[in-house]
């Protein structure tokens, strides 16, 4: 038996070690649980630590190996799960007071598949309430600190997932991306985050925010880690009629192929849209991304200009659609069947309004209100109908651009991590943090964020690769090539014991 240093360890190295009998899943789990106990008090990544369950799951992996059974492609990989995934018997709150104490009677397809592949869930990760936010400041319970600078936000809504990977408080993590909620925190925390094609990963057991936009996906320290997780998560699911029946791609192989030879991207055209480099973009972000494009050219790619002319309408379109869908999805929180119920209501009507008024935080209330407004008779066509048409035009832009390139490469976020409180007073400013990530959500196409440098202040900068529908392998190949030629992913944030 060899030991593993959890700090900076990759998921594939852990799985390889466990599968070869060189590592015990239980030892790995203990090391991560110890790190969480020492370090997470200062970071706030976890809402719930399931130490007992983690030990039980790790022991089962070790028992499978000992019995000569295949312990799974992700054997022993310590996994952090965004608290939006229902986990049977383990409290799931979506970081909302209205779901405090909710213990799901069933398991999400994604977490079931990851467990089936041998991953060992350590606990549930913090997030913006109902995945609504870009800074994790909307968690009803506690903020998540950016591991690179505790004065800065980790991004959101999957801020706990990104920060936990950066701080080595798990080796693999999962989140959801509705307007950028995987890629933006991945960028701000300097890790890899992947939003696959809509329907590539089942939404069964994922608490709904905006159903036509919700995309579950993986986080990893490396491109191959994210690819390995996606291989285990993806695929058709009889419990989700919108899941895609197409076969799963060879994502790990694609990530590794990016490291083959001096010009692994030879013959590939990468499109760069001017619309994603607008005034207001941080100069250090722009310089890092331009530098990354040069590196991709040295890897053999041909850099071409493309245009996404309707980009300026993306945020408005996104907020009209996501709030309309959210107002419908969040109607289920009425205090009747699960979650919080206002204790002293004297009528059913009062029970509904008090339960929802007391249970929801400010941002879900704001979105329910906006969604109710845009769906009202008389306004429906002017707002919601208009947004659905604009969505088509934005999706068509991507389709037209892909006629001239294989993938599109952009910054993930126009700015690095911002400070706590900087955008909380103006919701519109917070919404604009998603300006470069909402497009692929509206179009339903895959996109990946990885680290491409740091600001002088030491904050990570994200590079986004966008591919056509079901082109996940293209994202992994481009990102794998960039990662093989750079060392940003090897940098680790400082550690502060709590």
């Amino acid at each position: 038996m060899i030991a593993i240093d959890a700090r900076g360890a990759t998921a594939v190295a852990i799985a390889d070690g466990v599968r070869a009998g060189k590592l015990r899943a239980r030892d790995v789990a203990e090391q991560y649980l110890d790190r969480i106990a020492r370090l997470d008090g200062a970071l706030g990544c976890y809402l719930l630590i399931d130490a007992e369950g983690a030990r039980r799951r790790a022991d089962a992996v070790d028992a499978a190996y000992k019995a000569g059974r295949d312990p799974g492609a992700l054997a022993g990989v310590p996994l952090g799960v965004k608290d939006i995934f229902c986990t049977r018997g383990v409290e799931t709150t979506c970081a909302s007071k209205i779901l405090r104490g909710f213990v799901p009677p069933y398991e999400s397809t994604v977490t079931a598949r990851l467990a089936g592949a041998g991953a060992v869930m350590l606990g549930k990760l913090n997030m913006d309430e109902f995945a609504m936010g870009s800074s994790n400041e909307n968690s009803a319970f506690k903020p998540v600190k950016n591991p690179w600078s505790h004065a800065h936000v980790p991004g959101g809504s999957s801020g706990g997932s990104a920060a936990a990977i950066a701080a080595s408080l798990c080796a693999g993590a999962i989140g959801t991306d509705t307007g950028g909620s995987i890629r933006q925190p991945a960028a701000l925390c300097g890790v890899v985050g992947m939003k696959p094609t809509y329907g590539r990963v089942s939404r069964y057991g994922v608490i709904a925010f905006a159903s036509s936009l919700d995309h579950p996906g993986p986080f990893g320290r490396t491109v191959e880690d994210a690819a390995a997780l996606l291989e285990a998560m993806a695929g058709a699911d009889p419990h989700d009629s919108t899941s895609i029946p197409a076969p799963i791609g060879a994502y790990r192989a694609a990530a590794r192929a990016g490291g083959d030879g001096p010009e692994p991207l030879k013959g590939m055209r990468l499109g760069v849209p001017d619309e994603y480099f607008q005034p207001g973009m941080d100069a250090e972000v722009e310089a890092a991304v331009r530098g990354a494009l040069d590196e991709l050219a040295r890897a053999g790619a041909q850099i071409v200009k493309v245009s996404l002319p309707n980009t300026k309408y993306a945020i408005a379109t996104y907020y009209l659609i996501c709030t309309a869908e959210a107002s419908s999805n969040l109607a289920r929180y009425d205090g009747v069947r699960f979650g919080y119920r206002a204790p002293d209501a004297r009528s059913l009507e009062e029970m509904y309004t008090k339960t929802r008024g007391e249970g929801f935080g400010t941002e879900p209330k704001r979105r329910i209100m906006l969604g109710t407004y845009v769906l009202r008779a008389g306004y429906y066509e002017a707002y919601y109908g208009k947004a659905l048409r604009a969505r088509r035009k934005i999706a068509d832009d991507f389709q037209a651009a892909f006629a001239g390139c294989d993938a599109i490469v952009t910054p993930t976020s126009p700015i690095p991590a911002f400070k706590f409180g900087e955008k909380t007073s103006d919701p519109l400013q917070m919404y604009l943090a998603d300006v470069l990530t909402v497009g692929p959500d509206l179009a339903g196409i895959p996109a990946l964020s990885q680290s491409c440098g740091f600001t002088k202040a030491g904050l990570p900068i994200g590079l986004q690769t966008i591919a056509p529908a079901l082109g996940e392998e293209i994202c992994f190949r481009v990102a794998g090539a960039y990662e093989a030629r750079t060392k940003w992913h090897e940098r680790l944030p400082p550690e502060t014991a709590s």
Partner: protein
Amino acid sequence: MSRITADEVRELALLARLRLSDQEVAAMTDNLGAILEYVDALRALDTTSVEPMTHAVPFDCPTREDEVKPSLEPDEALANAPRRDGSFFQVPRIVPGPGADGEGGGS
């Protein structure tokens, strides 16, 4: 002139079954007004003869056989109920009548 008035916000809150404090109504009126003004930019986009996009990828609703399959046991389905009475979710009285106060009866 804001795009939305405090009275409209109160009416919306009623439709959405959200009890808001006066302070919340005031903040919401400001926030929603600013957001509605921002999304008005969409009016400049010509969407004549553009089909609404209701699904991210081309999609035919699949069907399955109508077969009885195992599902949650009543006790599991009721395990998270804030209040239950036997195999029922219990709520405050809906129909007015004698003793209509509170959540009386049952438990």
